[in-house]
């Protein structure tokens, strides 16, 4: 009996070794980058190491993107609703944070509360149209709602609050998480948030609610026949997604010196779509991996190719579509399944 | 006996579903052959596999001495196969006349066949300018058959012609099909055993995606056990 917990522990470690290894690597990342530059961990702690700080910055951007992509995967990949207005979820979070901190002068927790309330309100707004429209019409209506928000943000009337087409500038984050002076702390907070949200999502997908969401994606008519009022489940998914995207926006507004109106544009929704298509639609890991690949690709191309980077990235997406249609995680799953089958066959062959 | 169509052990899939698992159908030239079997047994899929709409993954389809499996479906159809699908598939945005005209494979075919078609189905003549949707079920069925007659087809695949029709109309339809069989070979899928037994000379029973029994219709009519077993009482 005493053996039990121990073996359970080791089983846990075995099944999750990839995740645990990744986690460890992420915790050590700032220090490793520092060491590679010949700078001691103390320097990294003091936020003095240039390259490590840069790597942390890139990682933070990836974490924020990953949160955003997760939120999109929840409604598109898991629940099967194609929304073209998803950037609004992120944009509301980012702009509201900026306005609340800068113009209203609220504290950080109050801002976060405000952002969450707004997130719920907009999920309900999107939810209002749900019973009326489906499929491509839903995509168009959400595109419309998103565009209106983008236009409002860009309008000169809102200029004093949103900075119109220049973007929202001069948001001063509280000193204790200042992205300039306390980046390491910011890095770990962002990492923690991402892990927590990821675990929450994993649980959600595995919960009774999440299961029904998947059922809705697979065959909504049948789900209704089973007695589920699918509207409430879609609304639940939308709300959770909206909260997450708003949280990502909140972090974005604190981390970035400027909230550009691009984050509220159709293009940013497309970014989310691309990320989960690269990673694998409907797989939560796919959203994380997709965010890493997308951001690094974008960064690398811009750095080494410059202006015409989007030409290359466009080509990469086209190649992805044609040759890796299920995304990295989806393709990996089928391939590893085939490999496993092959092994089993081999083993059978030799008794 | 000369077979216009010889389907040899075909296997077809719809998505992941292995629908046909070995169907053999031989159709003697000039005959009416009925495919019998329960709902979902694979009769419609057999017709679609012959036409290449659900291309078989295994097996052969030999039409007029030529292997046609793997050919593109419009090429197969152009070799002289007319298709009357289940639920008729009348084009609703086209008028009755356009529904007929679209079946032309060479210019002027419709004009040439017009008289013959309207002799067969006098109803269609006065409906000619109406859109396909405004027809009743029986009229739609007539139009669907008429559409398969516009081009020079040697083989007609007719799926469930009596479905949902009143007995009087079924009788009319049966007469038309009998008339057609003088010039062309017909493969018929039919649920209504009475209709099938009166029309067809030969039959093939399909069960769970396999052809399980074939022969002459006269023999089947006396084989109550087989009727009971494969078709239910009706």
């Amino acid at each position, binding site marked *: 009996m005493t053996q039990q917990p121990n073996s359970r522990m080791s089983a846990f470690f075995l099944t999750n070794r990839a995740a645990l290894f990744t986690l460890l690597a992420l915790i050590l990342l700032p220090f490793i980058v520092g060491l590679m530059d010949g700078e001691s961990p103390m320097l990294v702690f003091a936020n003095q190491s240039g390259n490590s700080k840069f790597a942390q910055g890139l990682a933070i951007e990836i974490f924020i993107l990953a949160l955003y992509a997760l939120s999109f995967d929840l409604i598109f990949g898991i629940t099967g609703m194609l929304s073209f207005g998803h950037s609004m979820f992120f944009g509301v979070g980012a702009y509201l944070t900026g306005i609340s901190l800068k113009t209203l002068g609220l504290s950080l927790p109050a801002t976060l509360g405000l952002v969450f309330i707004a997130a719920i309100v907009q999920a309900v707004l999107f939810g209002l149209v749900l019973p009326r429209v489906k499929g491509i019409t839903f995509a168009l209506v959400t595109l419309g709602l998103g565009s209106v928000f983008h236009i409002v943000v860009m309008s000169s009337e809102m200029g004093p609050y949103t900075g119109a087409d220049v973007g929202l500038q001069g948001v001063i984050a509280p000193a204790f998480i200042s992205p300039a002076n306390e980046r390491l702390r910011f890095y770990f907070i962002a990492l923690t948030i991402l892990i927590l949200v990821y675990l929450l999502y994993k*649980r*959600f997908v*595995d*919960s*009774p*609610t*999440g*299961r*029904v969401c*998947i*059922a809705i994606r*697979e*065959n909504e*008519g*049948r*789900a*209704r*026949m*089973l*007695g*589920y*009022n*699918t509207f*409430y*489940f879609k609304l*639940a998914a939308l709300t*959770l997604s909206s909260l997450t995207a708003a949280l990502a926006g909140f972090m974005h507004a604190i981390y970035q010196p400027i909230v550009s109106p691009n984050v509220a544009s159709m293009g940013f929704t497309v970014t989310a779509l691309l990320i989960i298509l690269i990673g694998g639609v409907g797989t939560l890991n796919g959203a994380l991996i997709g965010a890493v690949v997308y951001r690094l690709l974008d960064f690398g191309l811009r750095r080494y190719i410059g202006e015409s980077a989007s030409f290359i990235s466009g080509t990469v997406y086209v190649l992805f579509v044609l040759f890796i249609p299920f995304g990295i995680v989806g393709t990996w799953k089928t391939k590893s399944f085939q490999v496993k089958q092959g092994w089993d066959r081999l083993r059978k062959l030799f008794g | 006996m000369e077979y216009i169509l010889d389907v040899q052990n075909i296997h077809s899939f719809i*998505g*992941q*579903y292995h629908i046909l698992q070995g169907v053999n159908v031989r159709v003697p030239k000039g005959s009416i052959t009925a495919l019998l079997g*329960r*709902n*979902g*047994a694979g009769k419609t899929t057999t017709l679609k596999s012959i036409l290449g709409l659900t291309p078989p993954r295994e097996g052969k389809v030999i039409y007029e001495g030529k292997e046609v499996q793997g050919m593109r479906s419009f090429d197969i159809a152009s070799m002289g196969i007319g298709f009357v699908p289940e639920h008729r598939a009348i084009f609703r945005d086209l008028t009755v006349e356009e529904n007929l005209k679209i079946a032309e494979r060479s210019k002027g075919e419709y004009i040439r066949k017009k008289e013959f078609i309207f002799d067969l189905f006098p109803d269609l003549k006065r409906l000619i300018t109406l859109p396909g*949707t*405004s027809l*009743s*079920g029986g009229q739609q069925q007539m139009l669907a058959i008429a559409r398969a007659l516009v081009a020079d087809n040697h083989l007609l695949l007719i799926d*469930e012609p009596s*479905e*949902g*029709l*009143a*007995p009087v109309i079924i009788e009319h339809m049966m007469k038309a099909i009998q008339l057609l069989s003088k010039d062309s070979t017909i493969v018929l899928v039919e*649920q*209504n*055993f*009475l*209709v099938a*037994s009166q029309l067809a000379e030969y039959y093939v029973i399909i*069960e*769970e995606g396999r052809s399980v029994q074939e022969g002459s219709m006269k023999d089947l009519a006396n084989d*109550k056990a087989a*009727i*009971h*077993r*494969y078709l*239910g*009482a*009706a």
Partner: protein
Amino acid sequence: MEGAMTAEIILETQNLRKQFSGLVAVDNVSIKVRKNSLHAIIGPNGAGKTTFFNLLSGNLEPTSGKVIYKGRDITHQPVHRTIHFGIGRSFQITNIFPNLTVFENIRLASQALGGDNFKFWQASSHFKKYEERTWNVIETVGLKERAQTFARTLPHGDQRKLELGMILAPDPEVLLLDEPTAGMASEQVPELIALIQGIQKEGNKTVMLVEHNMNVVMSVSDAITVMHQGMVLAEGTPAEIAANKEVQTAYLGGLYELNV
């Protein structure tokens, strides 16, 4: 017989009618279904049987007429409500979640009415009662070995069983079965029919059945309604239907006598 006649009516339609643009699919159908009976609807293809079922289950809204369940008008209830009243319905064309496992399919059906659907903070494996119910149902329909396979990879016959399991899972009082044996091999049919009969008798359920196989219908039903072109052609016990000349000519074509 006498006792059955006076038994409680559980489901009733009054002048039910459904019109699709030109076509009247269901025309003035009034039937009464007694509690705990096995009531069969037969008729040729296109007679309106499936449409009639769709009206009962709320998939379609009737053009006119009423559906009454246990004395309550449920005509305009949306489809996701009917199961809450206790009416489960299967489909002629297998309607399952093809990319989920058999277990998952049935668990979704089991948990639907349990009221724990929004506990998103707990893993679904936490809810043991649904898992137990799921295993029970899987065992009842005989899919235990296949529980973890994807529904799409099941052979057709097993998919029909899965479909049956999905309506059984929430334990409804009335089962509407639309051609449960469609496309099954003839060897498997008696097995499934026995299963349905067992469920009906032991679980005290009311079963409405659309079926093509006349002999099956004749041997198991308590009452039969014959539909033809959307209308009720005849109603009665199997013996009465078998003797009905009109039914013979319109449906059976007068070619065969029925072995009852």
